[in-house]
């Protein structure tokens, strides 16, 4: 009879502890989100009295109906999608180009270029000068007010620079010997090897633009130009302040109770759906930049 090698006692204990700890971690991380989803579908009384945990109680979709029946919600949602896509695309191009240049050690004035970028991490013009600048450039009430001022995130830039520096320089030398131009090298050699960092940057940028509300709030003067975050922020403020002496129906109470949960679900859902597709790049991407950063 062949007996399989039995794992040692210590190893089995380790495995058991591991399983328990990881399960706890999973529950702890998942629970808040499940709870939010459950709350978003629950009745006012159940939410107020704290009865909702994993499953919705007193099933109710009034708040969803209220939010989604407003055409302005969809207009603003579309704006968010447009702003996020355009801004992410521009940011990726600009950050990649900047980071690639900075990764070249032979570049003259490299220190200055890095310094200029890093400087903005510690100092900025301030709110009002920024506003005056954007106004004077005629960018208010346009997409560019949201896209351009935040196009290059210095943190992302440095992560990317570190990644490019970690690529073996021989690859590029070989490409040069074969006669590619600088841009050809970037496009055909470097970028295909950088999918991990690109996916990471994509995610970082997309999430930050998706969640951002301040630029939209500040530079847009018309409601049809607001991103959905501004719309929902206003909705939450109105529903939770509730001091407007004129509104006191059952519907408004229901909305006040569920609005935060509904808002979280509506805004995080799309970006959550993106995660599984770039997850595998994402994990390695963050690690890669970190080693040399």
């Amino acid at each position, binding site marked *: 009879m062949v007996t399989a090698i039995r794992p040692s006692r210590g190893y089995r204990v380790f495995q058991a502890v591991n399983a328990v700890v990881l399960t706890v971690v999973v529950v702890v991380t998942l629970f808040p989100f499940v709870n939010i989803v459950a709350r978003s579908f629950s009745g006012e009384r159940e939410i*107020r*009295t*704290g009865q909702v945990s994993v499953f919705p109680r007193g099933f109710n979709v009034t708040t969803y109906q209220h939010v989604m029946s*407003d055409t*302005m919600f969809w207009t603003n949602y579309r704006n968010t999608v447009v702003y996020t896509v355009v801004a992410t695309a521009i940011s990726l191009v600009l950050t990649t180009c900047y980071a690639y240049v900075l990764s070249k050690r032979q570049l003259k004035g490299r220190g200055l270029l890095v310094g200029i970028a890093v400087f903005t991490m510690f100092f900025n013009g301030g*709110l*009002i*000068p920024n*506003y*005056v600048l954007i*106004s*004077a450039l005629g960018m208010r009430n346009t997409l560019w007010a949201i896209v351009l001022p935040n196009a290059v995130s210095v943190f992302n830039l440095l992560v990317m620079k570190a990644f490019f520096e970690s690529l073996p320089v021989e690859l590029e030398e070989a490409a040069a010997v074969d006669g590619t131009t600088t841009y050809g090298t970037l496009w055909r050699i470097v970028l295909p090897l950088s999918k991990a960092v690109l996916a990471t940057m994509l995610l970082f940028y997309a999430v930050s633009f998706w969640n951002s509300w301040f630029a939209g*709030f*500040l530079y847009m*003067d*018309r*409601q049809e130009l*607001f991103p959905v975050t*501004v*719309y929902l*922020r*206003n*909705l*939450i*403020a*109105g*529903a939770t302040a509730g*001091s*407007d*002496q*004129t*509104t*006191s*129906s059952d519907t*408004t*109470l229901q909305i006040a109770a569920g609005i935060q949960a509904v808002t979280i679900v509506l805004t995080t859902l799309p970006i959550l759906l993106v995660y599984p597709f770039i997850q595998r790049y994402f994990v390695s991407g963050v690690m890669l930049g970190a080693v040399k950063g």
Partner: protein
Amino acid sequence: MVQLSRRQLLATAAATAAVSLAGCDGGDGEADAGDLDGNKAGAMDGFKVGDQFRATEPLTFSIMMLSNPNYPFKANWSFLAELTKRTNVSFEATAVPGSDYNQKRSVVVSAGDAPMIIPKTYHPDEEAFIAGGAILPVSDYAHLMPHYSDKVKRWNLRANLDTFSQQDGKYYLLPGLHEKPWLDYSLAMRTDILEKHSLPVPATWDEVTTTLRALRKAYPDRYPFSDRWSTPPQPGANNLIGILGTAHGTHAGWAYNSTTWDGAAGKFVLSGAMDQYRQMLRYLATLVSEKLLDPESFTQTDDNARQKFAAGKSFVISTNAQTLVSENRKDIAKIPGATVAKIPVPIGPMGATVPSESLLENGIMISKKARESKNFVAMMQFIDWLWYSDAGLMFSKWGIEGDTYTGNVEDGSFKLDPRVKWGGLNPSAPKDLQVDYGFFNGVFAYGGSTKMLNSQFSEEEKAFQAEMNKRTTREVPPPHPLSPEEREQAALWESTLKDHVFQQTLRFALGQRPLSEWDAYVAELRTKNMDQYVDLVNKAYQRFQEKK
């Protein structure tokens, strides 16, 4: 752009210097209004009280438009169309989400990019913009506004307006005007329980104690009073402490104001160090030590307090007209035979009086740029009509006669059209007065006569208001305008003092600190610059008096 605002700044500095050199008359400085001949395009000649404003040519004014989440701004509201029809004026609106209105206002005004009309500003928010020279001293132009001046005169609001004055003797905000103080917050009591034990509705704070004692005797297992509205930074049970402080002649809780005018001594004193404040704390400490007031009142969430009230574990809770209907009454619906009512604010040592602070509402700032517009006079007349004339207020509040309402508020025949819903009225009507028409918008419809205000109340609330209106209005405390530098220093002192007052208020009320330590507490306030702070305020007061 930056150049421009710098130049504006210089101009303002020069103007201010000129004004102080010339001496100040403290009145509605018509003399400071400057030459308005070039700014009269579109204005009406001889515009007076009772006139319907109509611009002589089509005009457009830019305005900052707070978009209320409950009725988001729509450019196609019939309010706007009808307004243009009546006044020949249209708005160029910058829509700002209500959630962050103040922040955007602050950036836009500071950047010198503000619309001409900047409504929905609560005093003293306007003070932040004065030094930059971005907003107009509106008191210089009050003579262009007959309805406004008339109401200030008839309703005796001069002294109230003085409290808005700055060092130059001018004020920079056109506030909403109320004929009578409007008190909304009081206590809700379970009237069925009171009847069951043959207890009268308490009229004074002492009677409140007696009632609570009787309830405690009848229900020894529970606290008869468990309160809500305990959001920091105030000490907790903020409404209770607020109305209690007012009844004692000081400022506390929600109504906290660092200084209180001591009429007898002719000077300002720190509210938290007043003897009246101590009396108020003694009252609270008694309620807590006799187990009449739930000690959790100061810390629990509103939901917890509501649950106790809903379960019949408590019989008294703070309320206002809206909460009474939308929360208290609904919460107790499950208890058979339970009834609840808002009682008239109990009377304390100050007698049957009400503070005068609530006579002025939030208001409008006018951008400095507007003064250069050739339509400036027309704009002031327009503002005067829409925000201050009875016809304008009626229009912005209830809409179009025969369409959204019938009758009038003067003889009480006012009635909302059955096809229109508002608040609790006509709940099944197809259209909403605010959402669909744009009337009763917080940006335009506020203030006005008592009759106008009453038109929006239920019978129950009207009875409450009638009771409150029987009380006399207290004298307005004199103004004490600080200079910008003084204001900064005062704010530093004030915030540490306030923190200490709030913390210790809670400890005294809960009995964690005996009131015998009151003197030690006042000494602590002294070490936190109480005297310097109060001196600063009193000096400002004297300076203002001398100028006058």
